[in-house]
């Protein structure tokens, strides 16, 4: 399944916030069709990594390559047009706009080219994937529940037509039953839409269950990597992250 050239390649990424180092030489790759999980405790540098990939932060050193093109210092407005969709931490939906407007804005960068009718069709597809959004179509997005907002954030990012979807802690703050639903959905996105996914999670057990491969990041460094199945059986991972959860 792994093609030779990775879809996303991150090499020796070093990122600083002023003097504070957040990433200390991170390398990872994501191949087309994979669901890759990036696991790590709070403050490990997961969000920083995604922000660097999508151009919100410039690294001090290192390289990001997407589909063979170096995108290291591109602006985010440009990177999304190349096919990287980013669902940011805490969802960040436009709360004062309607659900439908949020989805329309997802299509912003290709709206002219695609045309209104086609965009409307794409929105209908999102409604098939997330029927609750159809029901809430004209409601202000800020009035949705946490789980619904997460669905909207994912649907909005899908409207950008991503080849690669970056997901930053989609289960954060959701009730356990919703968490399960959201994570299963990620699997479906890959299977049904063929979207490649890089998923950040603190929910280690569940994300290892749905991903193909995973990296573990600690204080800005990758400390472990492997297939998700291997990592589920790994003694250290079990001890550090799974606790009593893994039975």
């Amino acid at each position: 399944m792994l093609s030779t050239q990775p879809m996303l390649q991150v090499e020796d990424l070093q990122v600083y916030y002023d003097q504070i180092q957040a990433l200390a030489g991170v390398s990872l790759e994501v191949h087309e069709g994979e669901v890759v999980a990036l696991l790590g405790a709070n403050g490990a540098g997961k969000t920083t990594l995604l922000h660097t990939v999508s151009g919100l932060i410039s690294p001090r050193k290192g390289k990001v390559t997407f589909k063979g093109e170096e995108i290291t210092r591109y602006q985010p407005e440009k990177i999304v047009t190349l096919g990287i969709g980013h669902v940011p931490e805490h969802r960040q939906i436009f709360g004062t706009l309607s659900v439908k407007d949020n989805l329309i804005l997802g299509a912003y960068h290709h709206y002219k080219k695609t045309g209104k009718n086609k965009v409307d069709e794409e929105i209908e597809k999102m409604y098939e994937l997330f029927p609750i959004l159809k029901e809430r179509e004209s409601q202000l997005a800020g009035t949705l529940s946490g789980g619904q907002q997460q669905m909207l954030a994912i649907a909005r990012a899908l409207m950008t037509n991503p080849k690669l979807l970056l997901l930053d802690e989609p289960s954060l703050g959701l009730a356990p039953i919703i968490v399960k639903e959201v994570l299963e959905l990620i699997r479906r996105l890959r299977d049904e839409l063929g979207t490649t996914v890089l998923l950040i999670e603190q929910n280690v057990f569940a994300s290892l269950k749905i991903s193909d491969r995973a990296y573990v990041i600690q204080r800005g460094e990758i400390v472990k990597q492997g297939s998700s199945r291997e990592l589920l059986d790994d003694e250290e991972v079990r001890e550090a992250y799974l606790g009593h959860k893994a039975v």
Partner: protein
Amino acid sequence: MSELLQYIVTGLTTGSIYAIVALGFVTIYSVTKVINLAQGEFVMLGGMLMYTLSAAGLPYWIAFFLTIPLVMVFGMLLERIVIRPAKGADALSLIILTIGASIFIRGIASMIWGKTPKKVEPFTSNDPIQFAGASVTPQSLWVMLIMLVVVLGLYFLVEKTVIGKGFQACSANPLAARLLGISPARMSLLSFGLSAAIGALAGMAIAPILYPSFDVGLMLGVKGFSAAIFGGLGSSPGAVIGGLTIGLVESLGAGLIDSGLKDAIAFGVVLLILLIRPSGILGEKSVGKGGL
């Protein structure tokens, strides 16, 4: 009775101008959170350029429609040269920068146009229309009509077009907007251009009534700003209500109490409203919504 009606007509006319100027403030503020106190200078430039272009022999309406893009370019330059480099500065520093810019522009304008007011012809023949004992000049009606056009145009742009939704997105969450390919930097530039166009319209509409001079932007800017604050700063309907209220209070105050006190009365009412409702009359609902 007919006197009262006359005050109301006058009040609605100047109030409409204040409303247009206020809409210019709202347009920039709701997209960028910048309070652009150089807004009045766009109004001045609108009137003065209109004067210069038609004095240079251009047909009236060509001068009119040429003035708009010229002032727009000017607004965009202001954004590029003054606002953009100060990105990340706090709100107060930005306000001071725009005050500095407006003093600079006024200085240049006084060098170019001198200190005497300029006479600009009305849009159409200006024979007053008699109406229930009051007389209304056609130019007053034009001013009110332009105000309506600006309000409806803004409403359509912000609520019904994808660009307008992009404006709202940048205002609501610039980071999320960037991840969708909506550039807050470009939207900021556009909002300054749009706001300058609105200011130019106000300037050209009022020029035949209030012959403009280099410093006309100061008072109109202050009044328009008061109107925007009165209405809640982020709200277009609020800006219109604010502008009309200030215009009416001013005109009625001048007519019924003392014409020397008209500014004091107008500002007194604004302060009073803000003491009762610090967020402006339509503030709470609209702040952060962007646009309307």
